[in-house]
């Protein structure tokens, strides 16, 4: 009789849902690369790939507010900050990784149809600089609208940055073939429409099992660096299509779930359902090599190896660029007091 066996979800308990709360997938999945369902070993990273960018974004609500404009209109709003940034690195390790464009933007989200001026939070101390909040109208009036506005701004900024940095992906077979020289790794699933850049989304958390039961077994068998063939995935209702594949970054420890260390990658799919852009295949081929190298270690990051080393550094830099939340809210309070109050308070 088989013994009972317990294995760990690799991710810390305070991350909601954990890594392996697998829901079933309701969309469709087609083979585009090969009908043969077997592991594909990693290929070396081609010389001509010179730049890899790791892009991520963060947002933070700093204060919810209530606004009364000069015309007597009023509504909700919020002070918030978001930041998108990138780490530029050489996939061959010939130069140091650098942070790109990590700079916080600040928004004063407000209910639509209000007359709102930009808020300039002047420092009490000349050595601490100004904080400037640009007005951004929200859609709707629900209490989460401010946060959603902030999120939308962040996502579109992230999207723009990802695609600006990457090489172009040809849309169909008649396209002139472009070399893959710059690749963007974006944290999380891809959003919005295809802007045509070589952008690969890294989904750290396996929440949905897209593969049918007879194929899912391969995920446990992958060796580090190996990947599955590329599949074309269409969500329920045919809304988005993506090209997806799975990669294993590291061996699962004996005490962990056998699928830990496996990551799903996705790229935008062209409209032509039969066309697999060569760049996507290249990216899939090199992804094992590239990501195993970038994977983190358990003692440094609780979400290792999926939370890539550059991503963790980027997250830290983005947090820093938004400044201390406590200090910012204190300055907002002081600003309100100085501008609209009877006397200044701390």
């Amino acid at each position: 009789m088989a013994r009972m066996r317990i294995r760990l979800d690799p991710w810390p308990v305070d991350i909601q849902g954990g890594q392996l709360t697998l829901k079933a997938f309701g969309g469709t999945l087609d083979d585009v690369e090969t009908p043969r369902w077997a592991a594909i070993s990693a290929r070396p990273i081609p010389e001509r790939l010179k730049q890899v960018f790791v892009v991520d974004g963060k947002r933070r609500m700093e204060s919810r507010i209530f606004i009364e404009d000069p015309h007597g209109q009023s509504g909700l709003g919020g002070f918030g900050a978001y930041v998108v940034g990138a780490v530029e690195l050489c996939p061959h390790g010939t130069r140091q990784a650098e942070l790109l464009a990590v700079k916080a933007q600040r928004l004063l989200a407000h209910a639509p149809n209000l007359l709102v001026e930009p808020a300039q939070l002047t420092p009490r101390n000349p050595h601490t600089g100004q904080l400037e909040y640009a007005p951004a109208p929200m859609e709707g009036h629900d209490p989460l609208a401010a946060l959603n506005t902030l999120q939308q701004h962040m996502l579109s900024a992230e999207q723009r940055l990802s695609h600006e940095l990457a090489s172009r992906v040809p849309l169909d077979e008649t396209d002139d073939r472009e070399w893959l020289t710059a690749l963007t790794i974006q944290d999380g699933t891809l959003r919005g429409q295809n802007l045509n850049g070589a952008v690969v989304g890294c989904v750290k958390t396996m929440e949905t099992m897209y593969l049918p039961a007879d194929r899912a077994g391969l995920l446990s068998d992958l060796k580090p660096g190996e990947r599955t063939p590329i599949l074309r995935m269409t969500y329920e209702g045919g809304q988005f299509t993506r090209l997806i594949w799975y990669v294993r970054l590291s061996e699962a420890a004996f005490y962990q779930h056998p699928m830990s260390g496996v990551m799903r990658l996705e790229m935008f799919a062209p409209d032509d359902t039969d066309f697999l852009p060569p760049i996507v295949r290249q990216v899939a081929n090199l992804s094992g090599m590239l990501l195993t190298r970038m994977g983190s270690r358990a003692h440094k990051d609780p979400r290792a190896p999926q939370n890539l080393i550059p991503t963790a550094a980027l997250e830290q830099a983005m947090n820093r660029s938004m400044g201390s939340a406590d200090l910012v809210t204190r300055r907002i309070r002081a600003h309100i007091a100085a501008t609209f109050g009877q006397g200044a308070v701390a």
Partner: protein
Amino acid sequence: MTGVQGPSAATGAVVGMVLGTQDVTPVSFWFAVQPGASIQLDDLVVVGTRKPDGAEVRFYGIVDHVRTRHEGVTFDSDVQDVVAGLLPASVSYAARVLVTRVHPENFIPPQPGDAVRHARDADLRMALSADKMGDRAFPGGLLADGQVLPLNYRFVNGENGGHINISGISGVATKTSYALFLLHSIFRSGVMGASASAGRALIFNVKGEDLLFLDQANRDVAAREADAQAQKGLPRTRYELMNLPAEAFRDVQFLAPPRPGSAAGAIVPHVEQRASGVTPFLYSLREFCLRRMLPYVFVDRDASVNLGFVIGSIEDRLYRLAQGADTPYLTVEDWQPDTEQLIDEDVRFDELGGVRISTFPQLVAYLEYKLLDANDGEGDRKWVGKQSPATLQAFIRRLRGVQKHLTPLVRGDLSAAQAAQYRPDPLKPGVQTTVVDIHTLSATAQMFVVGVLLRDLFEHKERVGRQDTVFVVLDELNKYAPRDGDSPIKDVLLDIAERGRSLGIILIGAQQTASEVERRIVSNAAIRVVGRLDLAEAERPEYRFLPQSFRARAGILQPGTMLVSQPDVPNPVLVNYPFPAWATRKDEVDDLRGQKVEDVGDDWLR
């Protein structure tokens, strides 16, 4: 216009910004070094900050700590990922500044973000308080970046303070070289003003014959200075930067003890390497008595209290005995020496039946007779006093012990003219620097010579006052003025240290370890210099004037580098000083006097 007097705008290049992640205080702060800038220890920097009323306060300081680290990484092993190009990190390059001056004296802190600049020109003068020194500044060496360190002469010549003390391990700290460089700088920089010719130096040569070539040009100096200039990237040679001539010392007299055993007719200096220009020095027996030199023969006066009394009373007896005549020898009438017991056989019985004492052994024999043998072993009651025979015997035994060493130095077998000729006189007209070579002498004789010369000098200066500053260069102070114990030489040195500066005697003392020297001597030095130190020594309280980071660094200083502390600047400054322009060994003497070999050859052939 700012409220700051003096320099109106900082001129040096911006090298960084005051950090906000470390405490910023009016006496010490950190700054982040700008990319592209390079800051090293000992760089002098200036920071200006504005008070709320708009007035500017400037902080001048010296960099005493520099460090780099990866910023934004958490684990030590992250360095591998950073180098592999995976982990973005920036190198944080920061430096700590010890503030040496705040102007005006508003002790507010600088603000994070304030620009830090290299202190140059007017700022440098402010940083090193050269503005307070005015024309009384003389070069004390070059800073790390090639700028000149001014020293305040008022703190050297006794006006505000005096004396210089130099510590450091022998051979690495090159204490004597730096002392001589300072002398050269004082004599030749013009800081003594109109009285430049009046400054004098008395240098004791305690090691080898190194200092017997001070008046000769060094043949290596041009090449060594060109090397140093190229290595440090200086615009001119170090001598030129300090506006000092690269020349040997001028108007030097060399004194050396006579060779032992030489006959009266041929008194020759006891030196090996230098053939000419060295004058032997000695004292006549009568001077020995008249000028009360006896105490300087005894190094450990406090071996017993009674011995001290004996020395005092015998000194007095000898003084009275020497009265009334001016021959170099003494004549006594109450002594019939037992000629067989004497080493010397030239005792003559003449001069009205008196006995002539013309050598130091004879003097000792006479004293032994008076103290122990006369009166059938009771001794001459007037000489003996109430002392016990044991003390008297101890006294004679000690005299016998030093007799051999003092015999060549204290003599009666001279003509009066010889005695005058060979009397050491560091204040001789026409002489600026006197080198007294005592390295061939035994320790006791060295103490005797140093003690007597300094005592004479001190007494002379007590009479004539402070004009004509005399610089006394003495190495191994720990030997002459040890922390423990008592001796007449130590008394003289203490007198010089405590009262000398008002009389115009300046002690440039040196020792390996300041902790072993009488505290009052070291603490009286206004200017303190430290070369390479043993690290355990550097932690002793004598070096509290060095901040901790400097104490740690004192263990790795190279020859030619010194930490200089002066009252005007609260922190020590690291300087290097040029290669000596005077020969320090016989093989460095520039025989050709700067000419080419061919030219000298032509002269000979003509």
